[in-house]
């Protein structure tokens, strides 16, 4: 399938400092949910804003459905952006906010309000048409922002940390809804987040970024099972990154056990912390050479042979669970 969004050697420089985005190339398949993931300052938001057209591209090209849009204004690209702060216009009602894009395009009042009402129903806020943003809850504001971005029928929806302002319960709920909308509309979503859990839950393709470069771009399962570097393994979480006699390895914490299996590798040391997490217990072990590793043990397994901080312990795993990493990345 032809990619919907293609970045070719895209670089962004602010002033004379190091590049915020450093020559990244990426092809995002049509109709997919793509998450740009990374710590703050990794260039993910700059990348999104360049795709949207709110940031100029220092070098490189951006193609949308095969068309070079690098120099086009945002509205001519076929993208729509949902802002982190939602950027709802405080003086317009929910309905008027949604109709804004049509109003700018000169669509008549009756028609644009009717279409806006349709989109308000799409995000299940039919009863809130006449409310002002200040009279809506955070979750409702977000739905309005979503409807406002979708009404111009974009081919690509760009979302800048859309869930960061919501409380954890609402976040999970909105996450499901975003995924549902993306499936129903069949358009490409590009979603910037710093939460790996969010990226895993949503994306067909996750792009982990670090210092302006792409560290790994792959389906989330591949990233979790075969992290490309120590950075990816640490950032995605759930891994021990260890320097072992055979080189550097990433070992999933949920595959690590307190008893070394026959023929497996192991790390001996002292229990540094024990954390009860309900279904699982997290045991941190510090080796004499200073390395720490942890095991996420099913609670039954832990309680059958509990350990306490200060006791000697040996973590172990099957040799096939140790994923080799390149030593310098």
């Amino acid at each position, binding site marked *: 399938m032809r990619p919907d969004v293609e970045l070719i050697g895209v670089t962004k420089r602010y002033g004379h400092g190091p590049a915020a985005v450093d020559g990244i190339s990426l092809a995002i398949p049509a109709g997919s949910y793509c998450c740009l993931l990374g710590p703050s300052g990794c260039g993910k938001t700059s990348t999104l804003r360049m795709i*949207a*057209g*709110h940031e100029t591209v220092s070098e490189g090209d951006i193609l949308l459905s095969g068309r070079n849009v690098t120099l086009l*204004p*945002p*509205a001519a690209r076929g993208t*729509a*952006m949902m*802002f*982190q*702060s939602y*950027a709802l*216009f*405080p*003086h317009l009602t929910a309905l008027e906010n949604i109709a*804004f*894009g049509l*109003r*700018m*395009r000169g669509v008549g009042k009756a028609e644009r309000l009717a279409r806006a009402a349709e989109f308000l129903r799409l995000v299940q806020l039919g009863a809130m048409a*006449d409310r*002002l943003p*200040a*009279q809506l809850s955070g979750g409702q504001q977000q739905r309005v922002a979503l409807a*406002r*971005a979708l009404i*111009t029928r974009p081919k690509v929806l760009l979302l800048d940390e859309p869930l960061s302002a919501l409380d954890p319960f609402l976040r999970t709920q909105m996450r499901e809804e975003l995924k549902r909308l993306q499936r129903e509309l069949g358009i490409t979503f590009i979603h910037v987040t710093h939460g790996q859990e969010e990226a895993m839950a949503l994306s067909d393709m996750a792009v982990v970024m670090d210092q302006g470069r792409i560290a790994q771009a792959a389906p989330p399962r591949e990233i979790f099972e075969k992290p490309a570097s120590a950075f990816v393994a640490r950032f995605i979480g759930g891994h021990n990154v260890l320097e072992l006699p055979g080189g550097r390895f990433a070992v999933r914490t949920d595959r690590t056990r307190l008893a070394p299996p026959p023929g497996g590798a192991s790390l001996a040391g002292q229990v540094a912390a024990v954390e009860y997490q309900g279904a699982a217990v997290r045991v941190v072990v510090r080796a004499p050479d200073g390395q720490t590793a942890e095991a996420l043990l099913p609670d039954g397994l832990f309680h059958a042979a509990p350990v306490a901080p200060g006791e000697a312990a040996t973590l172990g795993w099957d040799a096939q669970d140790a994923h080799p990493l390149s030593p310098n990345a």
Partner: protein
Amino acid sequence: MPGRAARLLLGTLFVLFLLFLYGPTLTITILSFQGPDGGLTFPMNGVSLHWFGRLFQTQAVGDLGASMTRTLLLAAMVTASTVVISLAAGMAFRRRFPGSGALFYLTLASLIVPSILVSLGVGLLFNRMEWEPAWYSSAFGAQLTWTLPFGLLIMFAVFNRFDRAWEEAARDMGATPWQSFWHVVLPIIAPSVVGIALFGFTLSFDEFARTLLTAGSGNTLPLEILGMTTTVTTPVLYALGTVSTALSFLVIGGAILGMRLLRRRRGV
């Protein structure tokens, strides 16, 4: 929460401050209702509206009607110019342009230069150029040197807190820069723009020092009042004070009411 004694002290201080602030105005208001035979000082010699009536008759000294008209017209001109120029300048200052720093300090400098010197300077300039100073030219300019820096400072404060994402969102949805200003920026900052207008109006309405040497032959109301204090010896002066104070309150009250209505229409 401060202690009992401290609260009492602060309360007393505040009441004293209020007395200091409104005492003189109150005194003049009361004295303006002096009976026909009353004088410029207490005691009240009866209560009447006599001096308000006299206010609108021809005066032996001073022409109140004409100076009031001039002052109101001038205030309207100053208000309109201040709003338009401050708004435009505020938008311009959002992005740095060559010389923006110097221009900013020059603007602020006119707040610091003593008013009477500004007045003198403008008066001298008109004299040198052999232009006729008048309330609508030289005094208008002199008053703008006072209202514009205030307007600009308010715009700075407004745009400091203004979320650029609003304009980006408008652009994202296909608004031209002009549409984004008209449909998004202006409605959002409207309350501050009304504030600048009020500021401009009240500053101009009672401006004295900057008008003193620039008004030419036609006096504004504050100048006329100064002239009258030295020549008029009747409470008609107080009646004038009461009327102009009432007018100021009316303008401010009207603006506040207008903003309330606007807000209610929006439903905030």
